């Protein structure tokens, strides 16, 4: 019997859509397996970009089931080692959204996190669509995204409309003729 949810979830590898992994997680997060400079990326590890997307999904209440072939990049144990508060927060957000009963099944907890992260990726695509594909090329805009988050009451009023898959494809494909470039 697992002792607690924090430990229970650590063995799981969250899934994400390949497209979003390539265009967000690997674009802004340092991938140890690739020959590149760590300092060239805003996020020092892949999980950080994923967690940022998941937090955005939870914050904007945007949850979206994964489609197509999934991809895995790390285990939750990596988050537990490097950002214990973030893993706690993600689990707590799941509890806030689904009620405590979901904690019975760490697999379900993971699924909820994956779907909110998926929603968060779409929010990031929307920002890029609105502000330009290289918006986060200027690293100060990561901070700007934080400052742009509105207080909860205001946010509720302007809640982002859920987007359809076709919209996202058009964002990724915007003017690049199929060559995804952000």
């Amino acid at each position: 019997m697992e002792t607690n949810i924090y430990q229970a979830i650590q063995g799981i590898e969250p899934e994400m859509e390949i497209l979003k992994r390539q265009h967000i997680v690997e674009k802004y997060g340092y991938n140890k397996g690739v020959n590149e400079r760590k300092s060239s990326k805003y996020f020092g590890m892949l999980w950080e970009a994923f967690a940022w997307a998941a937090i955005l999904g939870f914050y904007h209440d945007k949850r979206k089931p994964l489609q197509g072939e999934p991809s895995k990049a790390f285990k939750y144990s990596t988050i537990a080692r490097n950002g214990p508060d973030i893993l706690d927060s993600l689990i707590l957000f799941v509890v806030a959204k689904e009620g405590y009963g979901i904690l019975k099944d760490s697999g379900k907890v993971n699924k909820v996190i994956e779907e909110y992260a998926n929603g968060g990726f779409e929010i990031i695509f929307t920002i890029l669509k609105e502000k330009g594909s290289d918006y986060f090329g200027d690293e100060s805009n990561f901070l700007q995204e934080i400052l742009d988050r509105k207080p909860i009451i205001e946010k509720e009023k302007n809640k982002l409309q859920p987007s359809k898959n076709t919209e996202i494809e058009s964002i990724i494909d915007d003017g690049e003729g199929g060559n995804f470039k952000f």
Partner: protein
Amino acid sequence: MIMIIKGISLKNFKSFYGDNEFIFSNGLNIISGHEGAGKSNLFDAFMWVLFNRISGLKKGEKLAESNNSYINDRIKNESFINSSTEPIICEVQLNVIIPEENNKEYTVIRSKSIYLNKGHEKNVFYEKNVWTYENSELIVSCKDKNYNEEEYLNKEAETKLDSIFPEKIRKYIWFQGEQLNELLDFENPETLRKAIDYLSYLSVYEHMSDIISYSHNMLENRIVNSIRANNRDKKKFDNLKQEIDLKEKAIISGKSSKLLKEKALEKLISEEDELNEKLAILAGFPELKEKEGRLIGEIEMLKEQVSNLNDQEKTLFVNKWMLKGTDDLLMKADKEIAKFINYRQNLVTENRKQLAEGVPGDQLIHDMLEKQHCTVCDRPAKKGSPEFISIKSQLDSNKVVKALDYDIEDLYEKIISLRGKPSNILFKIKNIDENVTAHKSKIEFLLNERNRKNKELDNIREKIKEIVREKGHELLNLNPTNINSTLLRVRTDKITLMRQINSVTNDIILNETKLKNLYIEISKLKKSDEINIIEEKLVRYTEFLSEVISKQTEKEKIELIEKIQNSANDIQKSVANINNIVVVFIEIDRKDYTLKFVDANGNPNPSHGAQNTLAKMSIINAIVKLSNEKKNRNYPFIADAPTSDFAMEFTDRFLESVSNTYQQSIIITKDLISNLDLYKKKGYIKKLYELQKQCTEEIALSTNSITIIK
């Protein structure tokens, strides 16, 4: 004798690409232009053609044939790119007219040719080893209105040129504003004495005095010789004569020693000039290099600070800041956790109530275990038997929640680790906006600082590049500390020599007095019938003349200083007598040439900045003006940036005063550039040119354009 510069032509000289020409007239000629428009290069053209001198070259270097820094870079670059076999010719031609010498017109041409070496492609065009240098050539030709022509080449030409424009007077009538301090240093009266000596006529009296003294001694000797021939008291005569000989020898040796020391002093003065010139070349350069180094260090430090802040930001972003705005979710989760814990607690309480009725107390169980008998079912329970174990398991059973649902306990295990975490995290993510904003402004401040310092660094590097290009790479080898220490040694040696000269001069004077007495003594031995009337009379005349000249020299010196002082103060008054500007007067000490500033009532009145510059310019102008009048010559006055310290009104008055002082003056300045239309209308300006920089993609290859405004 008036000299008028008719014009100057420049071909591929410094920033003047191709053929360029300036025509000048009598009176005031102005060449105006912004910084970098080529003004100082024009001044250098005058210096090169007349004195084979370029600013920035060390004194010993003035004839160095391998220096091509004054040949236009653009033409060198073109020739380099096209691998041209044609020579590049750099040439400056000056035309001068002397109206009083039958309108004689002198043409002075100095030129230099260079060729590309084979294999030059491996280098860059401004490297020395890319080029072969021809010796520079000087031609001085003159013709009068009857077309009588003479032509002089190289060495002969240099001699001829020196007779027209002696180099000695160069720095007083042709100078750059920045050299003014070196020329006339109010802290060092020697500079004023030197200026007056160079430019005045007082040295003529010294020559006269020497000639008279020589004649005097000759006459005295003749008298003595005639006395000896007829003298009866030979012994006394011989003694006196011996003493006279000794004194004369001492005087001759003293004079020759004085001469040697004076030559050594002259050498030291010239060495001092040379060192001062080097310092003038370096003016500001070491400070610029130091500033460059300091800025590089500061920029590196700022870069490091920004990089540290960026790392800090990334850590904070990932661990804290990206959770911004999730407070409500965390609070909700906290409530959910509390809800479950309450729910479970209720179940525990409920179970405890149910268990309390049927379960025996611990005291009864202990009795049963001791007696090994169950009093509930009244059966034996032997120690170790299943019955005994069953009874024992009932111990503490009223304190333990028993038999809660497995799922609830499993959930409890999972959820319990989350208890307290929401409030912990909520505490950590307080004030994120404030922290992020403060962090952003800190980074912005550092980045702005870095940009500002980078711009400053670019400017300094541009200035360094300009100075090195203009003054040559040798500049980088000049060490100001060494120059200053040599200068200090030279100055000390100079003072020692001056003291020695003074002491030798005093010895000479003493010996001369003694000699005079000896002559009187010996003349007493003269027989009454000896006739030396003519010599005696002549001796008296020479003594008288010597005295007169000495008094006259002193008188003239005092008068000259007074005239210089008055004339300088007149110039001061005419230039500075504008509303709100206090006129400061100059007072020169008649004996030691020290100078002080006074007000109209003669009370001390310290001067500074532009007033100082104006005072110096006024003194120089006064000396030159008086000297020109006295020696009946009139050189054109050429100055580069003499007015850079002055306010607009000062400049205006100063230029007008210059136009009144000199028959011809050529002023190169940036100070009029914003008001050319206004100055065009000024009657006292006869010619007005505007110089402009013609920028090319590579700044170093930029050239000039010349526009005649008037």
